[in-house]
């Protein structure tokens, strides 16, 4: 009895319990392979992971690296009927130094706004572009459309292109994926 109470009073016992709990939580909640059994076992640990924002996803360039070169172009209609185009930041058109500072814009635009999984962010993107357009002195925007422009990198065994190759913008595929009316309170 005294041995048990001594163990419970030892801080190392509790630290050890925490370490085991923490490792189990991370492993069960965040390991790539998802199975129904694991989901059940992981359930009690999820609140801990969520509460402390310990979520993690290490699928960097995986399971497949991206095979698409793309950018997003916004078509802005102004109150006076004129139309102008604005590209969301394109790393490929920036200097090395600019790219270093602006990489997060690529993450936002190409990894998130571009995909259908992030439809929810399209309205705020349109509003952001409208404000940029107004600030650039174009007038009052009344409508913003977002266009994807892209080209696929083909399988190297079928078509091996050298590094540094480029395709002009006008030869890229394009698709209008969102149109939104802009109200005054959006600006």
């Amino acid at each position, binding site marked *: 009895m005294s041995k048990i109470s001594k163990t419970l009073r030892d801080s*190392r016992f509790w*630290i050890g319990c925490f370490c085991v709990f923490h490792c189990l939580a991370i492993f069960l909640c*965040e390991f790539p392979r998802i199975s129904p059994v694991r989901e059940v076992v992981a359930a009690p640990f999820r609140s801990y992971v969520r509460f402390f924002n310990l979520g993690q996803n290490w699928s960097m360039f995986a399971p497949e*690296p991206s095979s698409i070169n793309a950018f997003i172009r916004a078509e802005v209609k102004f109150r006076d009927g004129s139309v102008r185009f604005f590209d969301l930041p394109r790393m490929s058109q920036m200097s090395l130094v600019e790219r*270093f500072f602006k990489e*997060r814009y690529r993450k936002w635009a190409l990894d998130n706004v571009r995909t259908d999984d992030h439809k929810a962010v399209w309205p705020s993107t349109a509003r952001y572009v409208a404000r940029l357009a107004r600030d650039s002195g174009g007038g009052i925007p009344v409508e913003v459309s977002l266009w994807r422009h892209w080209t696929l*990198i083909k*399988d190297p065994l079928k078509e*091996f292109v050298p590094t540094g190759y480029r395709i002009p913008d006008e030869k890229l595929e394009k698709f209008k994926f969102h149109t939104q009316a802009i109200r005054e309170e959006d600006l």
Partner: protein
Amino acid sequence: MNFLHKFLFRKEPVEGIALFRILISIMLIFNALLLVPDLPDFFGEKGVVEYWGPSGFQGSNLFSFFKPTLFNSTWILWLHLCSAISLLFGFFTRSSAWIGFITLSSLHYYNPLILNSGDTVLRLMLFHLGFSQAGKAFSLDRYFSRGAGLAPRVPRLEMPWAQRLIQLQISFLYFSTCFYKLEGRAWAYGEATYYTSRLWDFERFPLPYVFDHLWAIRATTWGSLIIEFALGTLIWFKPLRVPVILAGVLLHLGIEYTMNIPLFEWIMMSLLVVMLEPRQGRALALWIQARLAVLRPEGLPFSVKRKL
């Protein structure tokens, strides 16, 4: 059980984890400074996204208590920067790590759409540093303790359980990424670096020949996988530890040279320092300290030099 006890609690030198603290702090400071110019775009009401985080209460989200406004994001970022500087100098080290963790985590909640894996790494490392003994060497905490006669001349050995958690986390990271990649066709067939080297937005410096020949593309693809697998597993075998870490450094330097992923590779190389055994970490830290000794200001009082 005995092994686990030894692994977590056998007292070890703290200089290695202190060196890791310094490296991670430098990364945190750069990371915060990179966010400053674009703060209104990323964390403002009129930015690229409106608040994207969950609305309920989260333990590490200050936006559970404060409205997601540019004003609040701004002071949270500046508080984060201050905590990173404080962590760098080892001033109230654990508190600084916790403040850094909560502020960074809050910003991550605000706008997760601009985050890359480097951000996740920094957040997780702050969480773990909050438990660690990273302030017991090369720190102002130690300097003041020495001044008060509470710390010995040479830093005491301490239980490394927090460092072990960091090591396990890093292993998990590499093992997971390797696992994800093995599920993909391009990695299995050795073609992944063909695609990554043709992504226009990631281009940095050219690497002649390598990415223009299929055999070299396969070598770099499979080589990356092998190194990542080793960093997740073989690194735990003592004789392989240093070679695996060196291979990891080479891998990250290679990616840093060829691809534009700001800070990420430097963050990952910082992680590899903490993968050394605590005694190896101390040897590295003392070696660096000796190299830097020539830079130490001569005007510094002797007592200051001695206490650090």
